[in-house]
């Protein structure tokens, strides 16, 4: 009954598996030369991969990639070992590690909604959030009938993305998701409600309530992302991850060419993709000009 095992064969197979594991890791390890540029980002996430592709398209040189967990607490020695001059940091965890480096190492960052307040020289970057003035530019040109646009957001996000002094914008401050929902539900006279990417407020429930408000009150939602437009927002201006990567690549190339970063202000992405939902427009009696539709990367439906 049963089978007699060849113990040697078994051990050989186990050994092969372990060797296989390490061979594939070592074989595809970063190249054996030092890189002037290293990138810290969690490439398990698709947006990080897209940014990396954009960076490599622009830089035309090898870029060694590390996960934040790989370099936690040890980034300085990694940078020294790689002889890197520039660190590209994607995401909050990566930025937290990078800004602890000596100021002689330039840090370029992205994949945060708004830039952190960094008291460190030789640091710059871009951020994911779309400034309000980009929306105002689209509205001013294509939807001039939208005279009043309400924005409900936390103070920090509003400070960075908000447009001070614009007659079109009516801003409301919210601190919690419940506060956010309460403020949204009190809006009755707006021509549109603009969402800002404030993760502390935009819980799944808050977004659901906002859509409900939008359709009941016939007040179009100006969303943050393509998925919001697909779910019913009128339009959204969204950063393109690969374009962000190219932008970071250019900033990095400038540093390598000797241009001082100094205390350059972080900037938003310089180009945004427009997504439009014509079904929402039709239901709310809004006419979307053909020119706006031609500009859109994707028109739903």
């Amino acid at each position, binding site marked *: 009954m049963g089978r007699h*095992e060849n113990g040697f*064969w*078994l051990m050989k*197979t*186990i050994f092969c*598996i*372990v060797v*296989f*594991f390490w061979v*594939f*890791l070592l074989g*595809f*390890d*970063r190249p054996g030369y030092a890189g002037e540029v290293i990138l810290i980002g969690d*490439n*398990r*996430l*698709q*947006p990080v*991969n897209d940014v990396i*592709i954009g960076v490599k398209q622009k830089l035309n040189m090898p870029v*060694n*990639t590390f*996960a934040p*967990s*790989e*370099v936690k*607490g*040890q980034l300085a020695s990694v940078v020294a070992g790689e002889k890197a001059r520039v660190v590209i940091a994607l995401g*909050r*965890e990566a930025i937290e590690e990078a*800004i602890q480096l000596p100021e002689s190492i330039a840090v370029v960052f992205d*994949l945060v*909604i*708004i830039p*952190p*307040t*960094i*008291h*460190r020289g030789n640091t710059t970057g871009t951020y*994911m959030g779309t400034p309000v003035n980009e929306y105002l530019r689209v509205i001013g040109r294509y939807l001039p009938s939208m005279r009043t646009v309400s924005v409900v957001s936390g103070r*920090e996000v509003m400070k960075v993305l908000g447009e001070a002094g614009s007659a079109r914008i009516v801003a409301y401050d919210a601190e*919690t998701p*419940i506060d956010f*929902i*309460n403020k949204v539900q009190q809006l009755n006279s707006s021509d549109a409600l603009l969402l800002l990417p404030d*993760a*502390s407020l935009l819980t799944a*429930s808050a977004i659901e309530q906002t*859509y*409900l408000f*939008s359709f009941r009150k016939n007040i179009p939602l100006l969303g943050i*992302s*393509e*998925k919001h437009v*697909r779910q019913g927002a009128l339009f959204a201006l969204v950063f393109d991850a690969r374009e962000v990567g190219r932008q970071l690549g250019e900033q990095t190339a400038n540093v390598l060419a000797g241009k001082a970063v100094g205390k350059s202000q972080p900037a938003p992405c310089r180009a945004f993709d427009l997504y439009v939902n014509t*079904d929402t427009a039709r239901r709310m009696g809004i006419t979307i000009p053909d020119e706006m539709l031609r500009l859109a990367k994707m*028109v*739903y*439906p």
Partner: protein
Amino acid sequence: MLKKSCLLALVAACWLNQMTAQAAEPDKAGGSAPFGWDSSLKASDEELLLFWEEKQLIVESATRSDKPIAQVAENMSVISAKEIEDMNAHTLQDVLLRVTGVYIDPYHTDWGHYGSAFIQGSKITHVSLLLDGVPLNLLSGNTPFLWSVPVQIIDRIEIIKGPASAAWGSALGGVVNVITKTAAGAGGRGMMPSGVVSASYGEGESTDDNVQMNGSLGRWGYYVSAGRQDTEGLADDRAYNNNNVFAKASLATGAGLNLGLSMGYTDLDLNYGEMPTLDMLPTNDSRLFFVRGSGDLNLSQGLDLRMQVYHTQMNFYNKTMVLDGWSGYGAPGDLISGYDVFEKSTGLDGRLLLKRGVANAVLGVEVVRSDLDQAVTAGEVLAPLFPSYTGQSDLDRQAIYANDTLTLGTVSVTPGLRLDHDDITGSFVSPSLGLAHTIAERTVWRTTVARGFTRPSLSDLESGGIRLQPNPDLKPEKVWSFQTGVESGLPRYVWLKAGVFMHRQEDEIVYYSNPVWNIGEPHSETLVKNMGQVSRQGIELEAESLPVHNLTLKAGYVFTRMRTDGRWSDADYDGVDDTFTEGGVFSNWEGNFGLKYDDRNSLMAQLLCHFARYDSNISGDDQPKGYDPSYIWDLHVRKLLYATERTRTELFFSGHNLFDGTQSNWDVSKNPGRWIEGGLRFKF
């Protein structure tokens, strides 16, 4: 007893709610900030989820490591909790019925049926069911214990279609990995508790009641669910009762270590329904208990350790009684036969996840010890033919596996290798190689080559069954598989997925029994052997449109062609395989069609259709079964009644099998005709 338990759970939930309402104000994330970091900023993944769907960011079942679905080479489907709620599913089978490529056996279909799952024409024994990675296949028969998983606790289901042995071991047909809802708020963010209370009532006195709560207490996050389903049966008095509780807690210690603990209990009683043509009334009583502890530890740069230890107990008791008494088996209510199985398993699995450069690698080990006790009881009339007996067996399994996802620009290459060993059938090596290539924006091409296996059941190997003679020399069924397909959102108004699969199986496990046996005649036993090869080839197509005037169209179709080779067998039980049986070719097709209306305001309605024609010997014997294709139409409607800033109250209604379709491959157990139900759901 369970009503008291539910009431206690509800009281506990209210008490917890009160406690957490008085808890600290929501944390503004993390104390003093280094170098002027703003305290209002949140973790990267939460920010990214504002822009992308979760599955676009990460799935985990393909290689047992986290990666976006665009890097997954396997043919994978992901079903979310929202989709499950929209289809008003009562059981896991209701959900899987809507997945292209997964076929649910309509045997004993009813409200709360326990039909089994087949993937791409596989057998039910080829499908591995996991709950947060804990195996839930009955060892006695390798059947996935689908009906033991309450559908309300599901966060998402990741389904791998095709062999998944390089990651999961015995899974020749595929894997259904049920991932439960997370215990939110772990890590001290002081979330307000949230939850759902729902109740429904329908024909056949069918009720489905459930309470869920989710929140945090300090660094602990928790999730609890308690539910009860009950019906007198929609056809042939197929009564069903299911009571379940589930609890999960997680703790972020803040030292790079996250701990989790979950446990669940399901108690299910069902009546298969009266079978007057056979003079039988079969019933089933099943129980599942499991407890799982997990730990996730960051060891060093780029190196994480994930471990889990679990214990499961599964009890499955089938009893068949005399219905009318005309057959001579005894008086009405007498026992004809009983089959009682008690299994327990204790397992430990640990894996190292290593990220270096372009590599995302996993090295894991598994150790499982299982025990099986089974008892076969014959009634008074049948006792002379097969005496009652008890049997015990045990199984020790070990495995070591490794895989790596190498991301090179837009291409991800995933080699994998796994060695499984058990103390009865020996060892098996499962290699795999996959490739996922983002060939254009929103378009991914996937290809995999893999070898897989399914271990014979313990009943087939050692303990036997009702007139089943075990065969300790059984070998695992094996398969070589090739799949390739494309998935694209490039067309303007529609998402498309198309793929082909080819599976070549060897050493198919086949049962031979004397087809005629009556009381008084010498009985013969059922034998089980490896023999023959089976080829399964097919095509899968799926499409989903964007919402147009609030309407979304969704369709899926699978065609499978199966060919069994001719085989030699010992039909006269003289110990010589001298009877040749010709092979056969069978074709199956099945699919789903759906039309959804969602005005994003207060009304959602879904019209779903499932169609199937199954022309093959899916039960494992040599008798082809066929029936005219039939279409089962269901309608689900949900209306928002009232919403505040914190609560939503919804009314829902479902009409099942609207046009009285028939979709059963067994005349004595047809699916129910049209029936309706309705209910209320309160979310807070």
